[in-house]
């Protein structure tokens, strides 16, 4: 996913999540809204903390070799 797609997905999750939470009052909508808000947190973070800044972490090996 590109950062732009991630950003749009995160914003959509936030808007729909908050909307469901405020406008409806059923167990199903609450569960969906909480899942969407968690999705917003994760998608939003990785939309901003773009993969090019995060993908280089696996390259170094600092392990003592045991």
């Amino acid at each position, binding site marked *: 996913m590109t950062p732009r797609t991630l950003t749009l997905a995160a914003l959509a999750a936030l808007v729909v999540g908050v909307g469901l939470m405020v406008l409806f009052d059923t167990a199903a909508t609450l569960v969906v809204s909480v899942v969407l808000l968690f999705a917003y947190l994760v998608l939003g973070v990785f939309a901003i903390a773009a993969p090019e800044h995060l993908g280089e*972490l696996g390259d170094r090996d*600092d392990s003592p070799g045991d």
Partner: protein
Amino acid sequence: MALAELNAAVLLLGLTAYAVLGGADFGAGFWDLTAGGARRGARLRGMVKNAMGPVWEANHVWLIFVLVVFWTAFPRAFGPVMQTLYVPLYLAGVGIIFRGAAFALRGEAATIVEARLLGGAFALASVAVPFFLGAVVGAVASGQVPAEGAGDAWESWTGPFPLYIGVLTVGAGAYIAAVFLAGDSVRVGQEDLARAFRWRALAAALVTGVLAIAGLFVARSQARGLYDGLTSGGGVVAVVVSALAGVVALALVWREHYEPARYASAVAVAATVAGWGLAQRPDFLPGALSLDEAAAGRPTQIAILVSMGIALLILAPSLWLLFRLTLAGRLDTDFHPIAAADRRDEP
């Protein structure tokens, strides 16, 4: 200031310390959970373990502090809260036990399956515990706990506002943890990890900030009393201070000044907790029990303040020494990635 208010201030102080230090602890688990596969996430997970190692038990002293002050100074509120919110509190308690056990045993896993189970338990519990504790706070703040106790065990904390506060608590912890971990990475010479955590801190700050602002709409529709308290009087001052401290912390992280960013983040959290207290003042359980009604008798209140003073004489220097040694790098161990779950891929 009345005795009950003094004890409430002590309670909020302990809650702030737990929100900052315990929150950072739980937030580290969020980054562990989202670090990626075994190989890609190994160094990031290693940094989480390295940073948490010396302080994770001390960070949870504040939960005990909060519980002791709560049940001793405000027993008439403690009873109803426990009777009503025992489900999320029980789940949080179980999560804390599983998380601690998984963290302590993680480096000792003998097989790939064990390593993955322990890693999974640690990461999932790190997200679940702040979520349930946040839901408890949201339930109390939105007036879901009746003074006579025995409120609905499920509906009290599964409403929109408590669940929203649960998610917000997870996000706030992730942000604080990223700030702390960026500083810790610099200290142990892992500059690339510092950059990775810097981006995560900036991202989590923006995402959580937007979530907090959107939360005002949820509060307006679901917890009107709290919303009114946060948008007037002392409440709004605390909100403004929190927002300003958050912006300062963000700027400091951007400029890679991680140590002052720790303190600015702590101020933002402290102002948020203070704002909650001010917003529902003079009630302890909104609409159900005032601070004075919730408080224990005068001799008990005085005894708590005296014993807390004595306890802080012991606790404060100990914690100061621990954090001084930690921040000076005196307690650091050799950094190495957590790659036990990766052995299957080795030749």
